[in-house]
């Protein structure tokens, strides 16, 4: 049996499929977040060095992982959109950008709250923090470029070129910042020197990461459905949707 993947490259076919997938992903995200938060807040023991403040990492690390992962996913969709000129790929890239920006912001914000009791400061020019900040600027640049262009097709391709330029640059930025940091300041603050993590903490973090991942999928799919209706509002299939007719 051969599956025709291109069937779902059409917004008319993907819209109902996305609609069916969203509750499952939200459900999985909620379930995993419930388990993960139980592990994080109840099951995991208090860290003898950092006290309870370390529990922020159960939000912080998944957000930071996803912020980088989502940028790569967005760049992949952009590359597909530029290469095959598929509308849906560009819409997916557009839908992922805000979630990625939120995750980046969340990682920075929770990092600051973790840093205050642990390092004694909200912000240090640590290599990871600095590259995360630059990643936030990259996301905001893509969203701003999208908003500045009225023609959605031109915006798709312009943002695609920008996202691909960014994805080539991200490793370079990361290593340059890392190197700059080691050159400039002593390792007064370092995550790598922290004692090896207990298995239960790692489990909690992984569960929370999957929860965040499923949430990101569900949020992006919801957003892409809105984008599809908005962009294709002249098309017949949108007019036949029951939520559009009843509105």
């Amino acid at each position, binding site marked *: 049996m051969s599956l025709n993947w291109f069937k779902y490259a059409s917004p008319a076919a993907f819209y109902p499929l996305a609609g069916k997938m969203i509750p499952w992903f939200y459900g999985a995200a909620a379930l995993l977040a419930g388990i993960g938060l139980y592990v994080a807040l109840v099951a995991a023991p208090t860290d003898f060095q950092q006290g309870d403040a370390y529990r922020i990492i159960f939000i912080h690390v998944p957000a930071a992982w996803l912020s980088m992962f989502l940028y790569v996913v967005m760049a992949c969709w952009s590359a597909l959109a530029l290469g095959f000129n598929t509308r849906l790929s560009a819409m997916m890239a557009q839908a992922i950008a805000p979630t990625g920006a939120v995750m980046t912001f969340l990682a920075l914000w929770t990092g600051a709250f973790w840093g205050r009791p642990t390092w004694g400061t909200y912000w240090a020019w640590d290599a990871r923090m600095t590259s995360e900040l630059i990643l936030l600027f990259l996301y905001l*640049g893509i969203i701003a*470029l999208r908003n500045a262009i009225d023609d959605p097709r*031109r915006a798709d391709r*312009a943002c695609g*070129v920008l996202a691909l330029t960014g994805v080539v640059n991200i490793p*370079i930025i990361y290593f*340059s910042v890392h190197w*700059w940091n080691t*050159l*400039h300041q002593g390792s007064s603050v370092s995550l790598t020197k922290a004692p090896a993590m207990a298995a239960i903490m790692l489990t909690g973090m992984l569960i929370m990461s999957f929860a965040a991942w499923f949430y990101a999928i569900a949020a992006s799919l919801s957003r892409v459905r809105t984008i599809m209706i908005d962009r294709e509002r002249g098309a017949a299939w949108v007019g036949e949707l029951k939520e559009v007719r009843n509105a």
Partner: protein
Amino acid sequence: MPRSAFPSRACGRWHWADSQVSIATATANVTGAADAVWPAVRWAIARDLTLALRSRAELGVQLLFYVIVASLFPLATTPERNMLTTMGPGVLWVAALLASLLSLPRLFAGDHADGTLEQIALSPYPLVALVSGKIVAHWLTTGLPVVLFAPLLGLQYALDGDALTVLTAALLIGTPILSLLGAIGAALTLGLRASGSLLALLILPLYVPVLIFGAGAVDAARSGLGAGANLSLLGAGLLVALVGAPFAAAAAVRIALD
């Protein structure tokens, strides 16, 4: 009468029409796409240099901007020599970044506004080659003056001979990267609302590695590590940008023209 603005654009058009003839005749002799690259690059460099040199005042203002920004920092912080030596390379690099950013709209916006860019894109020559030529001309008129002025400004920051040499070398390798990356942003923001500040948001994060390695070169030299690693990394960045950026910029120009 806006005398300063009009003749230069008009001359640009005349120059273009003149070269259109030469391009048309040259096309007959073009046998393959590879043969068309170098004439196109040379033509674009010559044209943009001619245009730039006909509005020298504009170039002078951009250079003055660089000098003024660099002169503000001691006023805002301290004239103490040790502090200045520490800050100097970084300040000069940030000023170079801002000067590059300020000059980027010149790269395509004028040609876009009067339709020349469309003609360039329609020519039988590869757009990548023409865009590369424009980038080279942009660097020669805006990047190179910044490099040449750096030793002078470095003296104001109490940098010694070695540091000045390293700073100038780093700027010489780094500023072409700024022009190459900037060309992508300049083409992406063609004709958009608030394109100036948007350009800053798009491009400045991408400039970060250049800034770090460029300013780091002087630091490394002063601390005894030697600037070799930083300069090599800048050189590697320049090669990567040379290979990739013209294609991205040409793609962005085509997107803007659709």
